[in-house]
């Protein structure tokens, strides 16, 4: 399991920055073994490698004012790597296009929510009922339900809200008889708006559960 995850991770990450994952190949989840506390490994999860990030030395490289100062060479200050924007970003863009095309061809409908709410409305039920029919008649399709939010509120809290919306949509589809194993959920919070005006007409388009046909696992 760990090995699979690591290999998967390396394949993904390598395309980003051509590196390995520290901790791969090593045992990456420590067994807790303490039955009475909640300490222990997470179910089905993984924990990657972790470097020492403790502060090594204080002083910040300051040498103090000096009556006879010696010359200090000031480096570029770049503790920053150069990124190569090619490759990974282009691949993601292609995959997103493929997903969008597949979802549009399927005629899947979004489900919309009220402000600060994750309750499926009557309108939402109708949309999901039609989605459920398509999903049931396309037995090989795997779907992702994205939870989205409008721009109001904090980024972090909107990620929680987005997940509640995605889960609410998934739960209703399961109620309608769609196999839960065909549905995954993910929250994008307010980070991928379809509309960027600061108006309710726009906000309501962004408060949505968006169904996507997965084009890869």
């Amino acid at each position, binding site marked *: 399991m760990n090995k699979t*995850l690591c290999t998967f*991770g390396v394949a*993904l*990450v390598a395309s980003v*920055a051509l*590196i390995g*994952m*520290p*901790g791969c190949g090593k045992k990456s989840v*420590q067994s*807790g073994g303490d039955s009475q506390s*909640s*300490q222990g490994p*997470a179910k*089905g*999860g*993984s*924990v*990657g490698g*972790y*470097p020492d*990030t*403790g*502060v*090594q030395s204080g*002083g*910040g490289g*300051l040498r103090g*004012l*000096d*009556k006879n100062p*010696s*010359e200090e060479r*000031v480096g*570029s*200050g*770049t*503790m920053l*790597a150069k*990124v190569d*924007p090619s490759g990974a*970003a*282009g691949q*993601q*863009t292609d995959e*997103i296009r493929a997903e969008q095309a597949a979802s549009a061809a399927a005629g899947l409908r979004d489900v919309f929510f009220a402000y600060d709410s994750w309750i499926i409305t009557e309108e939402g039920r109708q949309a999901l009922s039609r989605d459920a029919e398509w999903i049931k008649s396309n037995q090989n399709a795997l779907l992702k339900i994205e939870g989205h939010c409008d721009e*109001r*509120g*904090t*980024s*972090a*809290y909107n*990620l*929680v809200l987005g*997940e509640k919306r995605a889960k609410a949509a998934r739960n209703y589809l399961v109620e309608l008889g769609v196999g839960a194993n065909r549905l995954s959920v*993910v*929250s994008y*919070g307010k980070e*991928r708006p379809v509309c960027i005006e600061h108006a309710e007409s726009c906000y309501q388009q962004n408060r949505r559960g968006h169904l996507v046909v997965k084009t*890869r696992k």
Partner: protein
Amino acid sequence: MTRVKMISAWFGGVLFLAGVVNILESGAADVFLEVTRPDFQKISLGIAGIQNKGGPDWLGGRIEEVLKKDVKRSLVFDLVDLPSLGITPTDIGNGTGTGSKAVFKQVAEKGVSVLVWGKAVMKEAQKDADVNMEGFVYDSGSDEVVGGKRYAGSPSVVRLMAHRFVDELVFRYTGEPGIARTKIAYVAQQGTARELFVMDYDGYDARQLTADGFLNLMPQWSPDRRFLVFTAYRDRNTQSIDMIELATGKRWTLISLGGLNITPSLSPDGNFLAFASSHEGNSELYRLDTRTKAIQRLTINPSGDLSPSWSPNGRELVFVSDPGGGPQLFLMGSDGTNVRRLTFDGDYNAAPAWSPRGNWIAYVCRTQKEYKLCVISPDGQKRVQLTTGSGVDDSPSWSPDGRHLVFSSMVDGKSHIYMIGADGKDLERLTFQGTHNSAPAWSPAS
């Protein structure tokens, strides 16, 4: 005590630090922020110019401009305008000439504590141009040129020379390293993607760190400034908490538990990573022991828990939980014990950040349907709203000296990054490019 002697006493930095401790223990009923304490006296400082001794016309002026802005932002010094005091900056040289003595006398008489001047030259080196900068410091308390600095480097580091010099000044007068060389990590829109960037604390020299073409969110620094932890998405389907090494761009997944994997925050000693995950149902808080890799669950309740932020001593966490609907701030021990509610004003309080001095927690408060910045003392007794107006403010992050906050605001329509004093003064916009800049995180001091 004469004014001069009083200022001299400040120079040791000891009294300054003692003052901070007093604030922490103060039971004063008045609401105040440390930089606006009635007895907080900034150290008056004048800059008598950076003489251009050869090279492009902009050289001395640019260094002087950066020095002035850094000095103002330090909030330790009060930048005085010398000409308005009748002091005409002249070439003081290295401060030993008779002309310079006359200037020093004037400076002392006008009550200016510190005088700074310098010179800069750019020469064509064999491959690249080379810049030399010298800065000098006269201290009217001790009536002497207490010292200086000599820097050399390429033209691309001219701003860094000035930043470094001001950090030396702050260090000299407070015993703290200053913030002029700190950095701010943030998220910027690139097409439909959101990528991590790092810029200097004054908004200059932005560099892109990730380029995976999807979402990279809410970065936080490691205590040693070498890494960022943040939320990312594997194949857009699975959320994870990733780590990236700034110097190399190496990046890997730390935590991928299924469900939400958000709001990572490293303890001040780097030994624990607190984060929120929903892999066991709703969003709960966990902490990863970075040495043993053991994960401990910290919260067990039916509410959504997220956004942990560490107290500077690492013993407590402030976080967001939403029992009864709206998000509110809660405190608990860093092992999950002793949970208690901190905020009671309003129905939306989120995104807390504990000040590195310990005495304030900044957060996003909703008042009159607007999301603004507030600060509250950890005992809940003092609360101040820092920003007003329209547009969502989000993601407050403290400067390592605890005197400033950086945050994102949509006050101008698009989300951009701003700096503000901990007293709500000195608002300064830092980003101007692009359509969306958010989630700023201020680096620790070097």
